């Protein structure tokens, strides 16, 4: 099995942790989800830990901490989808990953879609996992999954509570994973996000979605796209996933939609082998058709 290394990389004036490894073949960039200071668990490169080694057996993989997470500081006036997207593009240049596949979770999925619109030549494909942030929501009823969080918010216990509430079962919420989430919450970038413009990523989502939808309607999503939904995701329904699929599929021929069973909002953690099979199949199929 390939060993993964954790490096600190200087990107666009900020330092970010990058977990990377695997042979030099068909690189994949992983973009985690969450809005710093708003999402009740602290994501980061560590969220991919169960599935990263599976991909790294045969592929080059890189997972980073987006601005506002880990030790990666956000700009003074806060993080946003487009700033995170530019940060991801800068990292692709810094690590010489292009052309790469990108896999994004929830907000990270929307950031991946944004980045592919901005610089399609850098991407072979986009995969969106449990893409609540990117999916059309219409006037959906509110999810009550995280209605009454225990205080203090972002404590280790409060994050364990949120992760379990979003999951099908808590089996993937191991102690070392919670340690990473707790360390991320205590780090200066996340503290700054809570104190200051913490909700800025959330505030930037509607504009990013509007840009995506208008582009899909009028032109075409520029690269092959895959949506990997989870059957028990409390944040986005299969119907919402199919709505996003139809929107992208209208003009992008190489679009696929998938549902993984017995998973909540973290299919790449809760069913990592299934997630690996589904994403690998998409990449393999595109490579065979090239």
């Amino acid at each position, binding site marked *: 099995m390939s060993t993964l290394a954790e490096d600190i990389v200087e990107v666009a004036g900020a330092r970010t942790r990058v977990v990377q490894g695997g042979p030099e073949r068909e690189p994949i960039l992983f973009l985690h989800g969450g809005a710093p200071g708003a999402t009740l668990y602290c994501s980061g490169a560590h969220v991919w830990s169960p599935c990263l080694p599976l991909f790294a057996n045969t592929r080059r993989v890189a997972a980073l901490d987006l601005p506002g997470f880990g030790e990666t500081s956000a700009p003074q006036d806060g993080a946003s989808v487009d700033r995170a997207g530019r940060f991801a593009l800068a990292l692709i240049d810094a690590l010489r990953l292009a052309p790469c596949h990108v896999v994004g979770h929830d907000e990270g999925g929307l950031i991946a879609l944004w980045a592919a619109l901005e610089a399609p030549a850098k991407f072979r494909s986009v995969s969106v996992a449990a893409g609540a942030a990117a999916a059309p929501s219409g006037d959906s009823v509110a999810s009550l999954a995280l209605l009454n969080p225990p205080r203090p918010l972002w404590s280790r216990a409060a994050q364990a509570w949120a992760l379990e509430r979003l999951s099908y079962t808590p089996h993937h919420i191991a102690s070392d994973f919670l340690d990473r989430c707790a360390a991320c919450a205590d780090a200066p970038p996340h503290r700054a996000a809570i104190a200051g413009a913490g909700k800025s990523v959330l505030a930037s989502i509607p504009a990013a979605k509007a840009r995506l939808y208008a582009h899909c309607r009028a032109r075409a999503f520029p690269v092959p796209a895959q949506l990997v939904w989870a*059957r028990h995701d409390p944040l986005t329904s*299969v119907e919402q996933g*199919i709505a996003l*699929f139809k929107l992208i*599929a209208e003009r*992008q*021929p*190489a*679009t*696929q*939609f*998938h*549902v*993984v*069973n*017995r998973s909540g909002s973290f299919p790449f953690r809760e*069913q990592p*082998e*299934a997630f*690996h*099979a*589904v994403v*690998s*199949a*998409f*990449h*393999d*199929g*595109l490579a*065979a*058709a*090239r």
Partner: protein
Amino acid sequence: MTRAASDTPLPDGRWIDAGGIRTRYHEAGEGEPIVFIYGGNFGTADSASSAYTWSLNVAPLSARFRAIAFDKVGQGFTDNPPGDDYTMAAVVRHAAAFIAALKLPPVHLVGHSRGGFAAMRLALEHQHLIRSLTIVNSGTLSPRVGTNDVVLSQPPYPTGTRECARWVYESYSHNRAIVTEAWIDAVMETLALPKYRASVDKMEKEGLKITRFLPELARDKRETLAWLAEGRLQRPVQFVWGANDRTAAVEGGRDLFEMAAAHERRALLHVVNHSGHFPFREHPERFNALLANFAAWASA
């Protein structure tokens, strides 16, 4: 559109006795067996399926698997059922006998359309023969209303002509250009076989389609869906659906996935864009990759 998977001809046909039925099959490669069951049924006059249906899948998958496509009883070059046994039950019995005759270890079974029903029924009745199950655009298995007769009734060309067969497969497809001359050649070859014409006589002239095949299929379907819903399928299962199929709506694939996924963790649903009824012919590279990666996961 790029088309890297060339239309590799199937390996030469071989013959085996499967439950007393002289059966033609094609196989290539080594490793865990994948067995393909195509769609359609015996005695159709407008079009005719045969093992050729899998010509874009057998050769590419043979690099990692023992890929096997056979002709179902009464279809392609395989003998007709004895007497008046023109039933789906006979198709399932013969398919199981074929797997047993080849003495295969548990197989990755793939069934398309009517063959998807046969594959599910075979898996439910003979679970020891099955390692994993892949169902592709099967209106026959789907609990929704199939629209084959809406889309394909009264072709604008005479029955039994190339034009008629071409019209049928083009109507099934998203991209009409995937219906190649070689595909139609294979259809016409089957339609011309005397034993195939005898099956048309049985189903149409003698009326077995109306008096036997369809009513028994409807009864078997009720039972099969009930078995699926009560959790009798206990093998990894995936449903692959072309998004633009005019005959078998993607919602039916989702219904089947929900029924299976309630009881089996290793269940997946895949929807493939710009594909009609035959995703394994419209996008062979992507279909083959879905199958290969699923089989690897199912065997892990």
